């Protein structure tokens, strides 16, 4: 890990986060930004390996930065760092391409642990987010009359669903790995895959929506 984007508007919190990141990634290059506009400028200039993005910013939402990263630097792992713990704020960010989220209010040790996990390729996935993802794909699997051919069909595999189900029940990823006789790494890959599918499906949906709006707008 070398290049890390840190988008946070409050200077104290930004400094605090910065020190945390330095603790986890001692040799990292941290590019700090306080506004969406600045962050987007950095995204177009520097290639990042990890991005910690706050959502509520003075000039917009961090979701835009997540989407921009997803668009231009698909390899970058975007993680939402926020004060909002509700699905309403988090889910759009996950759909835009974020791999998990970290709550700012959590204890320092907990955040450090989560960052370490992320660096090992294990994105965080809470039970409530797992439930939300399941509900999202369950709604999608229902037959939809609106031009299904134009939309790439994205659905979860049985294994992915199984993992989600267990996460929702409160099992940790290592526990699920044990239960399914899979390595911790494989489980992490499933979780990443789930995040990716959520993003792809959402983008297809957004594209279709845009197309529909265009048709009607004419």
């Amino acid at each position, binding site marked *: 890990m070398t290049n890390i984007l840190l988008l946070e508007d*409050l200077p*104290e*919190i930004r400094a*605090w986060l910065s020190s945390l990141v330095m603790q986890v990634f001692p040799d990292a290059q941290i590019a700090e930004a306080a506004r969406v506009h600045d962050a987007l400028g950095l995204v177009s200039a520097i290639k990042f390996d990890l991005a910690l993005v706050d959502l*509520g910013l003075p000039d917009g939402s961090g979701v835009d930065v997540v989407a921009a990263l997803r668009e231009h630097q698909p390899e970058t792992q975007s993680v939402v760092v926020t*004060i*909002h*713990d*509700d699905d309403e704020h988090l889910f759009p960010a996950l759909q835009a391409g974020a791999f998990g989220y970290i709550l*700012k*209010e959590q204890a*320092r*040790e*907990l955040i450090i*642990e989560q960052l370490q996990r992320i660096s090992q390729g294990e994105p965080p996935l*809470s*039970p*409530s987010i797992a*439930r939300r993802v399941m509900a999202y794909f369950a709604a999608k699997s229902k037959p939809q009359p609106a031009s299904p051919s134009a939309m790439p069909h994205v659905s979860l595999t049985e294994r992915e669903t199984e993992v989600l189900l267990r*996460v*929702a*029940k*409160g*099992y*940790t990823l*290592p*526990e699920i790995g044990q239960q399914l006789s899979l390595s911790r790494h494989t489980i992490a890959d499933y979780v990443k895959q789930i995040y990716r599918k959520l993003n792809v499906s959402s983008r297809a949906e957004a594209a279709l929506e845009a197309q529909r709006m265009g048709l009607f707008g004419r």
Partner: protein
Amino acid sequence: MPCPCPLSAARRHGRLPGLARPGLGWLLALALWLCAGLAQANGLGGPTVRIHAAQAVVSDSASFPTDKPAPLSDLPDDWSVSRPGSAGPVWYRISFTAPGLRESGELLGVYIEHVCTNLEVYLNGQLLQRGGRMEEPITQNCNHPQLVSLPAALVAPGLNALDIKVVGHPLDSVSSRHRAGGLSALEIGPISVLEPLHAQQTALNVAVPQAVSATLLLMGSFMFVLGWMNRRESHLAYFGALSVGWAIVESRLWLRNLPFDNAVAEFLLCAMLPMLTLACVQFLLRYAQHRSRMLDIALPLQCVVMPATLVLAGPERLYPVASFWYALLALQTLAAAVYYLRTQYRGRTRSFWPMALLLCIATVALFIEYASQKLGVRTLWTHMAQIATPVMMVLVGLRLLQQHGKALQVAEESNAQLEQRIREATAEIERNFTQLAELRVEKVTERERKRIAADLHDDLGAKLLTIVHTSESERISTLAREALEEMRLSVRGLTGKPVQLLDALGDWRAEVVSRLGQAGIEADWSAPADELPQTLSARAFVQTTRILREAVSNVIKHSGATHCSLSCELADGDLQIIVRDNGNGIPMELDGRLDRGHGMASMKHRAKQLQGQCLVESGPGYGTVIRLTLPLTRATEAA
């Protein structure tokens, strides 16, 4: 027979035309012999003598003119036949003897079935009866049978002279043959025998038409008002007009004294008839749902034209002109009736047969009336026909009323249905409106909540967060974190959605197990994994999460345990969570209470807020057991 009966001889004489030959100067003497024995033998109260001939002379003198030749005239004497164009007055004289009358004590009378227009009766020069005014306007007695008693005191033992002075009108100046001048045959006999005859005839001629007139007048006015109020049922108004008109025409049969001369009365009566025809024709057409613009003009026009022709013809030629119009009007009515019946037949309505029957009877009655006019005959059939027409009208009226009533009923029913539907629709609208309003309130509330939440997060949240992460003191940091949580709960908790118990268990498990795992403590979690229908309110969920967090923090920080087991159970509607560790236990304070520094007080306080309790058992050496019991229903309801 104890004595020769001159009665039979008189009858025979009356019928012999030879006897009535003028110039003979033969005075018909009627010997009336009345004896009680004969009356008893007959069982009728005595015989009567029917007079078929009388001396007749045209004169306006005060008494029977003896100076003029008085030829014998047949009775009934129809002036239009015997003396055409004559307006009278005509004096009639019947001579008779009534021996033994005084002794018998029987009251004698003369019954005159029909006299037109009015009469005076004298016995031996003494006025017995006058029917009313003898000058214009003459009292109309054409339809009133007369019964005159002959006082025994005035009956001479010898020959008696019964004089009758009749005033009337020539046929041409009346519109009906029934009102042309004339005198019917007379009947002389005991009053007791004649009285029933007179009563019967009066009933037929006067009482029945009166009753019919009254009925038609009442029903007609009623239906006229009904039809007038409800223009869609205009046929009712026309029928009402017809009934009322008929009642007025009918009144001529029994109304004796009119304030106008005969000419005026007859003219007015005739002028009524085209109006009646108008009402009748329009009634039939409207009843058949037909409306003719041409007839709407032609029929009223006829009401003007007909009187005009009568005026032009003059009162002395009233009868022929009126007869012509009668025929024309009857034909119009008949045509309308046929048209009506045809549409009813084609429409296959249920009222065809009854209406056809009623109209047929009315037509036949009109025909009989017309024929009797032409032939100048008055029989029982004529009377029946005269009554039949109004009776049919009454029946038709009843039928119309029935239909009207039925239509009214149907209308009321559909009205009630409509009202019911409107009520339902109104209720539906109100319901929808309420729902809409509620939805709107919810939406507004939701938006407002979000706005407040965003504001609080951005400002207060950020500041608290800064305190959490920059404070040197662990205690202030914890307080700030709790304040942050409290703020979030305040914003979301009140309106936040309830949390499924199963989801809550999942969240708790994830946090507890991963935290204990990180701390290197072996965790053992047991909870029901089945579908749980229970929910927790947002606040209960957050409070319970805090209690658990605190308990786990205690285990990690203070217990020095290597194993921690958590079990969640549902028992008697309570949620029971037991946290058990194998650590050092909590040291006692000096006052024997457990250490406050371990957050026990706040855990207990929170449990209390949820109407539950938090029990802590601890002792050196055997670890700590925390028993948290929350009443699920109340925890669910607690906001």
